[in-house]
């Protein structure tokens, strides 16, 4: 693979039951590329958590993925309410998700920590009232 491959996914924020579809499609795409299964799993989980976050907090958003010889880069962008205190949001167990989300199996305050755990680099850019962009990188070697 000499040229970078790019994927774009729209994450529908209207319907929680469909959340995760982009990550599933992305995982299938990467399997076809012949990437190490462990790396695929890490990248897919990180993207899945990010996708769930966008659905819960930001009415959806977009996911752009770039795969080249060295790394998988994932950029998640939403126009949601933003994160006022990123350090706090990164703490395991801290969540602002509503109760109905907990009854769906999410909102345990593990999303962002899981994303950090499974990626080699992660940055969060967020402005309250404007939106949030999360960039993640998973090295292939």
């Amino acid at each position, binding site marked *: 693979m000499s040229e970078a491959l790019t994927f774009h996914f729209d994450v529908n924020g209207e319907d*929680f039951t*469909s959340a995760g*579809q982009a990550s*599933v499609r992305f995982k299938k795409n990467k399997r076809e590329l012949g990437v190490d299964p462990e790396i695929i*799993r890490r990248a897919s989980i990180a993207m899945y958590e990010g996708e769930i976050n966008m659905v819960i907090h930001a009415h959806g958003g977009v996911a752009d993925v770039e795969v080249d010889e060295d790394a998988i880069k994932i950029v998640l962008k939403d126009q949601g309410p933003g994160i006022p205190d990123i350090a706090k949001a990164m703490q395991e167990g801290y969540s602002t998700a509503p109760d109905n989300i907990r009854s769906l*199996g999410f909102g345990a305050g593990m999303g962002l*920590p899981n994303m950090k755990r499974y990626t080699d680099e992660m940055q969060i850019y967020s402005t309250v009232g404007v939106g949030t962009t999360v960039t993640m990188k998973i090295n292939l070697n």
Partner: protein
Amino acid sequence: MKIKEVKELLGAELLCGDEAELEKDVYSACGSDMMSDVLAYVKDQSVLLTGLVNPQVIRTAEMMDMICLVFVRSKKPTPEMVALAHEHGLVVLATEKRMYEACGILYSNGLTSKGVKKR
């Protein structure tokens, strides 16, 4: 342990999967209703026991490369969920046993949380 044995030990009903899939080996399991907790511990877990019923359970199992889902407490997945599981090649079982008992039975029969898939 084979999926077939998981089914027998739990007196579970088979909702998705065929005879060949029941012969597949599983090496470790995890039980939780919180999908984020399941996603926090990425190992070669092959079985997920849960009392949560929504499509995210299927997608979480798919993300984790799990091959068998067990719904406890007589919970039944919707036909849409079974179709999604079928699409991903997941075996789906349902048992009347509650989470603690179901996990205990599998654990005491050798399916722990630390099994390693033979490569």
